[in-house]
């Protein structure tokens, strides 16, 4: 049913739970591919670089954030792809999703940044509103 799944992740607990649900959906039909998308916004990118100014270390760090999710995918032997986007998470993920034909977008209800959410509205809400594909919001 859902052959092309987009999973928005930032390494938070919610995103790990979303990953589990996405994997469950993927297991329902063969030849499903999960695309894991991690959007790095300006703020995170600044913090990352200020803390570690070696580019290689930064890349490593970002990969490590998604490691729990990647491990789950490897464990289940699913086809997957990791993509790192730059920009404000909501629009960046929507843009990526709408340019390709995904059957479903899976996103956690809350990410890492609670304060920003209060001010700007949640990433999941933005995605739910603007993405063309069905959106599953995981608690």
């Amino acid at each position, binding site marked *: *049913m859902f052959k092309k799944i987009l999973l928005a992740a930032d390494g938070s607990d919610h995103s790990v739970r979303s990953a589990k*649900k996405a994997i*469950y959906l993927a297991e*329902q039909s063969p030849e499903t591919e999960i695309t894991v998308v991690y959007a790095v916004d300006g703020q995170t990118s600044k913090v990352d670089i200020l803390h570690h100014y070696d580019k290689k270390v930064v890349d490593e760090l970002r990969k490590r954030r998604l490691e729990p999710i990647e491990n789950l995918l490897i464990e289940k032997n699913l086809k997957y792809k990791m993509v790192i986007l730059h920009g404000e998470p909501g629009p960046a993920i929507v843009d990526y999703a709408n340019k390709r034909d995904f059957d*479903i977008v899976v996103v956690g*209800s809350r990410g890492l940044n609670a304060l920003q959410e209060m001010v700007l509205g949640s990433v*999941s*809400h933005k995605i*739910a*509103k603007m*993405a*063309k*594909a*069905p*959106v*599953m*919001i*995981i*608690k």
Partner: protein
Amino acid sequence: MYKKILLATDGSEHSRRAAEHAIAMAKCTGGSKIEIVYVIDDDNAKSDVLQNWNKADLGDKRKDRIKFAEQQAKEAEVPYEIKTLHGEPGHAIVEYTNKNNMDVVVIGSRGLNVLQELVLGSVSHKVAKMANCPVLIVK
């Protein structure tokens, strides 16, 4: 995994698409059941009664709105149950979901009432925020 599926419907285009997704999901897991929920809010109740004096007619009209979902479920041979709730759609659906421990809620992104949505915010957003379980928003 998703055994108790709640399908929120109001007979709109979006809710029809939501029905298709809910049924596809129900087919994935054996023994799952769809609860088709239609909420009658005060406004609707008023205009329905004003336009149809006869109570029997009224029931027919309301049934019409869920007919599509019901037919689809019947054709797919998925067990289902129809529930009519009264009250404000967002809250009524959330309350019902949380009380009955549903596994997933499937809801269309936009309902019939566009104006109300602008003023009060969309029902799907409310449900996505307040329900305790994953919410699939169908476009």
